Every structure is written in C-alpha cells, then in structure tokens.
C-alpha cells in the first residue's frame, strides 16, 4: 500500500506539479497580506455569519482559502487521472501481479493523492506565513497557523470522492464528473442552514426529498465554520471527514473488487 502511495507521491517530480506549485506559491505570496476571510465578506451574508460567529479566536485567512482552492483543483486533476491511467496503460495488471490486494492498491492511491495535496497545501501555507513576516513584519501565532491547517481536513473526504469517481470513469470523464460533483455539493451546502431559518415543516415532503439529496454530498461549509481549535466541533469534523472518506473508499473498493481489468471496456 505504501509502495503505491510512494508511486503517486513521485508525481511531484513531474513538471506539471512544479508549475501548479509555482502558481500556488505566487498566489500565496500575493494574498499573504489580505485580511481574514470573514473581513472580505459582506457582513450580512449567511456565509459571513458562519465563518465569523464569534466562537473561535483564530480566523481563517483569505490566502488559505485561495490555497485550499488550488489544492482542491490539483487533487481533482491528479486523483481523477491516476487510476484510469493505470487501467488504460495496463500498469494495474502489473501491480496486481504482485502481492498487492485491490483495496490496498486503492488505499495506496488515496493516501498518495492525499499526501500530494497536504504537501502542496503545507508549502503554500509556509510561503504565506514567511512572506507575511518578511514583507509586513506580521508573524501569525501558532494557534492561527493551526486553524489554517484544520481546513486541510476537507481534503480527507474530497480525495476519497475523487478516487471513487475515478474508479467508474475514464481520465477526462473523471475530472469532469469530479468538478460537477463538487459544484453540486457546493450548491447544496446551505440547505440545512436555510432549512433551519424557515418555519418548521414549511416545505413538507419536499424538505425530506431535498435532504435526501443533500446527504449525497459532503458539506464543505462545516470546514469553514468558526470554531475553537481542537474543540468539539473539530473532533466531529474529523469524524465527519473520515466517515465520508470511508463511504467513498468502500464504494471504490467495491467497484475495483468486481472490475475485470483485462476487459477492454473496463
């Protein structure tokens, strides 16, 4: 499993990764002087209310938000292409000829992609912290830096989703499907919050239907909510992340288990 993960991590040596990293680092440098994300929003917007509810002392930085976005794009491109490429090139048959189980292969890919994302995110955050200190003399506190890294927990389910989708489609189709899934997820993110604002039972049966669809997507807003570092919210955020990751990895494992890698249509 770790050998497979290591194989994926070697992708970092590819020029495409360096180009993406360079873009991210420049962006991190450029946005390092921006205020907290909550200060960039219209104060009466719902999202502003969520990310600045007054619970946590440390705020998410705008630069972290940008870095998170770029890392998510990288994970989408890298993760969606990994497994389909292995299948189409026949590399998977070579790997399967070794004493590697299908689920180990899938977990290896998952941890590899997650590792790339985390390294990418960490490098960019380091640039933000260092450039903020060097250019403006503003050294972020340790809790503040930790709060930024809490956002990286969103990569745990996201990478699993990317891996699961890539088990069902080809390279390009996986990228498109991942992007579509992400967009639909984002459009459903406010559903529970809006539902809480409406009078109970307003939508009746329709509300149940909407919630059934809502449960099919992860809610990324939870990662942005204002909370105390390593508090109860963080614990449940981790449970939430691992639960979603487990669900999607199980789906991926099931698909790989029944997949015939030798057939042309696989």
């Amino acid at each position: 499993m770790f050998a497979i993960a290591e194989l994926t991590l070697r992708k970092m040596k590819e020029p495409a990764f360096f180009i993406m990293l360079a873009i991210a680092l420049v962006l991190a440098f450029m946005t390092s002087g921006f205020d907290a994300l909550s200060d960039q929003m219209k104060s009466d917007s719902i999202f502003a209310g969520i990310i600045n509810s007054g619970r946590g002392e440390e705020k998410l930085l705008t630069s972290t938000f940008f870095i998170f976005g770029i890392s998510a794009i990288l994970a989408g491109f890298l993760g969606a292409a990994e497994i389909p490429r292995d299948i189409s090139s026949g590399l998977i048959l070579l790997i399967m000829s070794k004493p590697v189980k299908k689920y180990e292969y899938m977990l290896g890919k998952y941890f590899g992609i997650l590792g790339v994302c985390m390294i990418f995110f960490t490098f960019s955050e380091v640039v933000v912290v260092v450039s903020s200190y060097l250019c403006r003399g503003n050294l972020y506190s340790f809790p503040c830096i930790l709060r930024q890294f809490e956002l990286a927990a969103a990569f745990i389910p996201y990478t699993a989703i990317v891996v699961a989708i890539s088990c069902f489609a080809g390279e390009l189709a996986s990228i498109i499907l991942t992007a579509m899934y992400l967009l639909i997820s984002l459009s459903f993110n406010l559903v529970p919050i809006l539902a809480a604002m409406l009078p109970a039972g307003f939508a009746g049966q329709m509300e149940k239907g909407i919630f059934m669809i809502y449960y099919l997507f992860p809610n990324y807003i939870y990662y942005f909510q204002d909370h105390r570092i390593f508090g109860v919210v963080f614990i449940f955020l981790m449970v939430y992340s691992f639960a979603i990751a487990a669900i999607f990895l199980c789906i991926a494992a099931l698909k790989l288990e029944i997949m015939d890698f030798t057939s042309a249509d696989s």
Partner: protein
Amino acid sequence: MAKKKIAGIFIAMVSAFFFYFVSEAVLRQAVVAHLNPKKYNTETVISLMPASLRDSLNYKFTLTALRNAVAAAKTPREKVSAMASLAMFTKDASEADRLYSGILKISPSLIESQKAYINFLLRDRNASSSASKSKNTMPSISLRQLQDYMKPFTQEQRFNIWADAVNKINAMKPPLPDSEILDFLMPILSEKAEFRDYSILYAEISKIARRNGKTDIERKADDLADEARFCTSIIEHLSKISEEEYRKAVQAEKDKSQTKK
C-alpha cells in the same frame, strides 16, 4: 472469499454511514446554533429569492409559522388566539371558516374568540358569503348571541366587537332593516361611554335613528357622543397601562439590584 470481502466492505460502509449522520447532525447544530437569529432568519431567506417570488414566499412562511403556532399552543386561550391569527391571515376562506368554527367549539366565551363571532354573524342570511358552499355545515351567529357574548367584557374590550359588527352589518347585501340594527346597538346607549372611540358608535346610532324619525334615541345618542368626546381614547388608555407596567418593571429591577448590593 470475494463474497466475504464484499460483505466486509458493506459492514464498513454501514458503520461509516452511522458516523456520517451523527457527525453531520452535530456539525449542523453547531453552525445553526451560532447564527444570530435576529440577523439570519426567514427575512434573510426571502431576500435571497427573486423579487417575483418574495411576496408569495413571505405569505407561505408566515402561514407555516402561524400553523406551527396553532399546533404548539397548549392552553385553550393560546389555541384560540393562534387559530384566530391564522384565520385572519389565511387567504383560503374555507380554512378560515374551519378555524373560526373550531374556535367556537373550543372556547366560545373567550375575548380572543371575537373574530369567530364576527365571521359567522348572520351567516345564514348572508347569501354572498365567501364560504357559501359550506354554509350548511358552518354555524351562524345571531345579533342576540353576539350581544350575550359581549356582556362579560369591559367597555374597552367590547369596542372592537361593536365596531367590527357594525362594519359587517353595513356591508351586508341585502341590507339589514334599520329597526334590527337599532335593537342590536341599543345596549350601547344604556351606559355612559368611558372612551372617546365610542362617539363613532353613538354617531352611527344617531344616524339610523334620524333616518327612522326616532328623535329621542337620536338626541340621547348625540348627548352621549358629546360626552364621549371628552373621554380618553382606548389607545391612550392602553399606552398608559403599558407605561405603568414598564415603570413597575423598572422599579422591580431597581429594587432587585439594591437588595443584591
């Protein structure tokens, strides 16, 4: 072996779903509980909608909130009050009739039931009623019944009932005979008005009496109307009461803080 593996994956997936639903519920509560309800409420949701939808959504939101209030009401007074609010708000005439009819069944003697009495006032003779279809199943309140209902209330409480009843009677087609209206309004003449607002009702009696040549009633109504004009209005009276209540509450708060010191 493969079957066992697939079963294992399914078990893992079910456990993951359990943790997913539990953690999602906690996180959702964490987000919702910390949103300021004064800042983020139904109005916020309405403002996010297209302008063309706002009015109908606003109506539906309020209707749902009023229905929830009816369901949540515990005492008969709360129930009647919530049902009356819903009946007044809804655009569905048959729903309003059902609610008013329910009010009369639950507690016909409460002051909060007044709108139900007015709604069914002379329903059996008013053919143009909006709920004429359900006329047979709905009650009809006679003028005598309305007078009996009003008797236990104070003059201040009775005013709105008189005013609503007069408005309803005046809007009736075919119009009610003047003699019946006068008979109905006579109890107003039998007592001295405590509030300026009653001068309108005396003027109404005077007008009907003049039309029918009943000069003694007209004169008495005019005299009482003149006297009523020097009285305080109901709004002034109510604001005085609320001012006094506020002053008492402030004093109680002061006393409380002094005893603490």
